[in-house]
């Protein structure tokens, strides 16, 4: 059942829709800048076909901007340091 705190009737918490949309917009813009290159690389690894062509075409400019602006560095550094350390084979 919907608990008191989760019910829409409880007093408003948060921000108005316009500001929330701005928040989501900022999130998506920065997310694309930070991850654009990695997303493009993932798209190139898809199976050959229309889906791959679509994603490669959509993500190529995003990937270029991401790389040229230097924003992709954060993802790259995280992957090559902590990501590689955590995901190395663990069996002794």
């Amino acid at each position, binding site marked *: *059942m*919907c*608990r008191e*705190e*989760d*019910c*829409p009737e409880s007093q*408003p*918490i*948060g*921000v*108005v*829709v*316009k*500001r*929330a*949309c*701005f*928040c*989501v*917009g*900022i*999130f*998506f*813009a*920065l*997310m694309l800048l*930070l*991850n654009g290159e*990695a*997303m493009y690389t*993932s*798209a190139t690894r898809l199976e050959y076909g229309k889906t791959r062509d679509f*994603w490669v075409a959509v*993500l190529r400019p995003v990937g270029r901007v991401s790389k040229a602006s230097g924003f992709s560095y*954060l*993802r*790259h*550094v*995280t*992957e090559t340091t*902590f*990501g590689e350390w*955590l*995901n190395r084979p*663990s*069996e*002794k």
Partner: protein
Amino acid sequence: MLFPTTVFALFFAVVFALHWGLVRFPLTRKLVLLAASLFFYGYWSWKFALMLLASALLNHGAAVLIDRSSDPRARRGMVTLTVTANLLVLGIFKYTGFLFTKLMVPLAVPLCAWLGTTDQLIALQERVLPFIEKIVLPVGISFYTFQALSYVVDVYWRKTPLARSGLDFANYLAFFPQLVAGPIVRASDLLPQMAVFPDRSVHLDTGRAATLILGGLFKKMVIANWLSEHLADPVFAMPESYGAPDIILGVYAYALQIYCDFSAYSDIAIGCALLFGFHFPVNFNAPYFAVTLQEFWRRWHISLSTWLRDYLYIPLGGSRTGTVRTRINLFVTFFLGGLWHGAGWTFVLWGAFHGAYLSLERAVRRLMGLPEKPSADTTFGKALLGRIWIFHVVCFSWILFRAPTLKVAGDMLRSLCKWGEPGKLLTGTAVLVLLVGFLLQFIDGRRPRPVWDAVGRWPVWVQGALAAVILTLILGIGPTGVAPFIYFQF
């Protein structure tokens, strides 16, 4: 369409923009949301989307007839027919293979041997099996069938008013965040929200939504995927190659993997719905902190356990029909709950184990004069012992749940006795990930309310930017590729 993918990110951005951009056009907005949900579901297969739409139309049609009828017998007949039809569809897709290959054939083999008709049985198998193999289980059918049933039964009981229109009901049933793996949101909770869509005057709890979505992604992509790949999958794939320390580690890993995986889906669903202005109930509340198994089921997959309570346990008589009958009711409820999870003897035994343990727990607590609910004045030591015991009871039951066959479950139990072999999987990283997975329960329920509120007070651009940075870190830390959520198969 999986949550942590580029496709979903793009889909979410488009649907979010349309949802809030079409506020002045309520009907178009509802149609767009339904179309988006059907697209989300149809991304697996357009046939699934058609089935979902047909389910929405038929169940709403039945509910209309039930609501309009004043003859109790006709109403009872219609609700029985609708419930049977829903369960039949679910049964055909989910249990045909199990019933035929695991129940009918094994029972028929000795009978046919005695009658001398083994050749006919083999011929029948050869004819039927290709049809059974063609049956594909639609993703999330168990979830939306239960939602539809709750609506029809509630209308019959006059607990919920009829949906204003078929469109509202279709949006309730198909709303994409909760469509494939819950939470099983009741009609009484979501239908009123679907009748009048939130307008621009509402406040969106961006702090809570961001925390839930990012927390969920961390649970799924970093913790659950790691535990699955490095500990649980290897152990359950070849239990005979491991000794007791690794088996124990693998079982702990699976216990935390399924928690992190499933609660992650619920969290992301609740967070996404919040950004659309809809409110879902909480589905997990630190389940491994439970002192009794009964309490565990009040904290684990809350929407399913309350569904089973309200639509199965209570109609069976609940706890009002005497001690023996109560225990039988509990057992039957959990037995069927186990079967709901999957068509296999392992799930049946898992449900039966929980049903039997709950009945026994109730009896023992009554015998010892303990209250049904663990009281707040229980000492810290007693509560800790209870928590450790219940965690291990649940872990033991996960062996049945995770093992693909009874043979694998048996091998797991046999390997638990091999104490001479050294642990191959125990590493510092394994302990760290297990510990983090366990501690993530502290962000369940409404415990992080102060964090949501604090985040919600930051400027919105900071919230958006920080969420993007955290998501990048999660994607960087997590393994490459996306494993489907465990509960998709149910």
